[in-house]
């Protein structure tokens, strides 16, 4: 198992290296700062870290022979893992269908590049019209918005959009696949534990290995969260 994890380190190492090599090399937006929502991802990161804790508690309960506590904590781990995956699905969907609203009268220096490129539509827009701005879908111009004239549009970050999309979705997608595999594995152990002699306090190697894998996937996520999300949004990194 340790050999496998070493191998997996190289796997993620290569993906992260590819991401970093191409970091800031995208020729067009959207960029990390345009799409990431740090609060949302912080919550999902917290969920995943808590799942590691419940995993530890589950294993501890098993080795002490408390089968009920073992199953409860194992189920909690599975639920938390699935929650993390739900967050990721939501996030991917959100990135692919991201709505931006710009108030045309705002100070242009405060806009991000992406907002500025949408605001270019302010000049051509007429009330209620569909306007075309490169890279955006469903662009609409409202002359009488809440704060004066507004323009809104949807842009999508997909794996094809730019280098950021390509590397981001590959890296986080493979991590998501690892979590999915982990959930299936734990789920199998959960059901298997009801079979007589399936998982017992003495026969705990299966759970031990699954736990090792689970913690590894968590640690990788901490690296991804730091390198991709935090470095991508906060200046000075």
């Amino acid at each position, binding site marked *: 198992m340790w050999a496998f994890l*070493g191998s997996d380190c190289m*796997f993620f190492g290569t993906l992260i290296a590819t991401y970093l090599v*191409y970091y800031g090399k995208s020729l067009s937006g959207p960029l990390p700062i345009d799409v990431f929502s740090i609060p949302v991802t912080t919550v999902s990161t917290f969920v995943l870290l808590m799942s590691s804790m419940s995993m530890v508690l589950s294993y501890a309960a098993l080795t002490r022979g408390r089968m009920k506590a073992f199953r409860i904590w194992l189920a909690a781990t599975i639920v938390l893992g699935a929650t993390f995956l739900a967050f990721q699905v939501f996030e991917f969907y959100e990135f692919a269908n991201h709505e931006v609203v710009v108030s045309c009268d705002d100070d242009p220096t405060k806009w991000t590049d992406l907002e500025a490129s949408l605001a270019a539509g302010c000049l051509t827009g007429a009330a209620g019209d569909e306007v075309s701005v490169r890279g955006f879908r469903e662009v609409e111009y409202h002359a009488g918005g809440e704060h004066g004239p507004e323009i809104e549009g949807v842009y999508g970050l997909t*794996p094809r959009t730019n*280098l950021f*999309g390509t590397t981001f979705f590959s890296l986080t997608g493979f991590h998501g696949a690892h979590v999915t595999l982990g959930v299936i594995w734990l789920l*199998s152990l959960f059901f298997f534990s009801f079979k007589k002699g399936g998982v017992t306090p003495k026969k705990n190697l299966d759970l031990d290995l699954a736990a090792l894998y689970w913690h590894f996937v968590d640690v990788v996520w901490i690296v991804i969260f730091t390198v991709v999300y935090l470095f991508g949004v906060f200046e000075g990194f």
Partner: protein
Amino acid sequence: MATESLDIHIKFPLLKRPLHPTGIWGWMTTIDHKRIGILYGVTAFIMFLTGGVEALLIRTQLIGPDKDYVSAEVFNQLFTMHGTTMIFLAIMPLSAAFFNFLIPLQIGARDVAFPRLNAFSYWTFLAGAIILNLSWFLGGAPNTGWFSYAPLTSSVFNPGNGPDFWIIGLQVLGIASLAASFNFIVTIINMRAPGMTWTRLPLFTWMTFITAILLVLAFPVITVALIELMFDRAFGMNFFNVAAGGTPVLWQHLFWVFGHPEVYILILPAMGIVSEVLPTFSRKPLFGYSTVVLAGAIIGFMGWMVWSHHMFTVGLGPIANSVFALTTMAIAIPTGIKIFNWIATIWKGSISFKTPMLYAIGFIALFTIGGISGVMHSMASSDAQQQDTYFIIAHIHYVLFGGAMMGIFAGMYYWFPKITGRMYDEKMGQLQFWLMFVGQNLAFFPMHFSGLWGMPRRIYTYGPDMGWTLMNTLSTAGAYLVGIAALIFVVNMVKSWRKGELASQDPWDARTLEWSIPSPPPEYNFEEIPIVQDRDDWWERKRSGKAKTAPAAVPVGGGSGGGHGIHLPQPSFWPMVVSIGLFIGAMGLIYNIAVAAIGGAIALIAIYAWSFEPVNEPDEESGH
């Protein structure tokens, strides 16, 4: 799902566990490391012959100027498949054949740590080999060279299926190699007989261990690179899309970060074989055991620091080039240490020039030539002149054919009596060695000159005024000699296997544990697990006169002797089913995603069935 699959093998009577299979079914469900080793060896040797035929076609096309036996397109496919086949389908699995057959025998174990995983490795390797070679019949083989530089592989420049077969085939082979490597690492760490400490481990086992670690660390890198390429081709992503800011140099880095350790993956097992053969036929212990092991480990470590010497002409800048030039020169030191150790092993030995010994000495000579031209490449400025010329072809063939394959031939002759229980024909073997030795030098040495005279690699023909005709004709003649030698080898092996003279347990008066048991070894290997007291334990036991008395032993299994009561895992077909699922899934990835899903489902179900299958059926406890 999970609980249902518990009984899946009982529900399908067709898939009932074969408890005592015979004939072809026995081979298909076997999880005996020796049988798997033989399967690996035979399959890989067939692939070696396939790659050889491709080589002969290439050389025939180049026999003289302006020939058109094959078209330029087919030529591209030929050299791509020749390289890919020889590296991934011939040399690596031939080494794997030795790992499988020998490692448990050398460390005094009954089998590898995960016998069913071992079977899975073989069937998956076979699946990968089939996928790669199917491409010939399904719209053209890959044609981008064995390192398939981007953007030549992008769907814009290469719309055919060839690169897809290459990508998917290598991914499947990667799975096989990774599974096998985990298996051997765990086996060597955990399954050694009592007393078999790390400093008593046979050299071949040591080199296997280092190779397995290299594989485990190097293959994920190529896996990711292949995934990136596949995503680019299948989903229009941008990893190597220059228009979106991607850079083809990334492919080169990723490929060679894998590719250079891969070179040592190919050569270290051969070095291990030679380190077994030389002491046996010199009747001396290996000179400087610990330095040979250490040098192997250093090569394994430094192999990671030299990859950019494949990229001196990319324009990485003088600092990068200088650093990689220095590390490349430095890696010649541990290699040199080994060569001197081998020579010192022969020195003043009582040498018997049997075929394996001839091959081992040939290995030293030819590998040294390849090593010297390798050091020449480490000079970045000189390398710029040699890049992509036949000089490189000469170098790679001296290290891979003159090195790895000579080592493997030494091993095949050396362990043939152990594997088959019969002796090969010594006269034929000697003749075959000399043909092979002369043939390959005739084939590859002139390439140094055609390369320095400016002949680029991978051209499908050349003009009569270029001055390359003589050297090319010589190379082609040499290649034909190698082909004849390979045929003689096949005849010798097949004939001897069927009705060769019966071999004794220890025909070479050898040193390591596999010679302490009958030839061919019984299914359970060791009646009693030996207690190892020395390096070269079998040799010491023979010399101290203890060989005839029962070896010191610990009781294992239930009874003693005769093999009864020794618990062996039973055959299983699930590993093969998983591989079939992978095969269908892989083909689906090329053609139709729905088929891929079916293949994946088959593999998944089989994995569950495999996990819940007991190692031994309870009512068959005393089976053997």
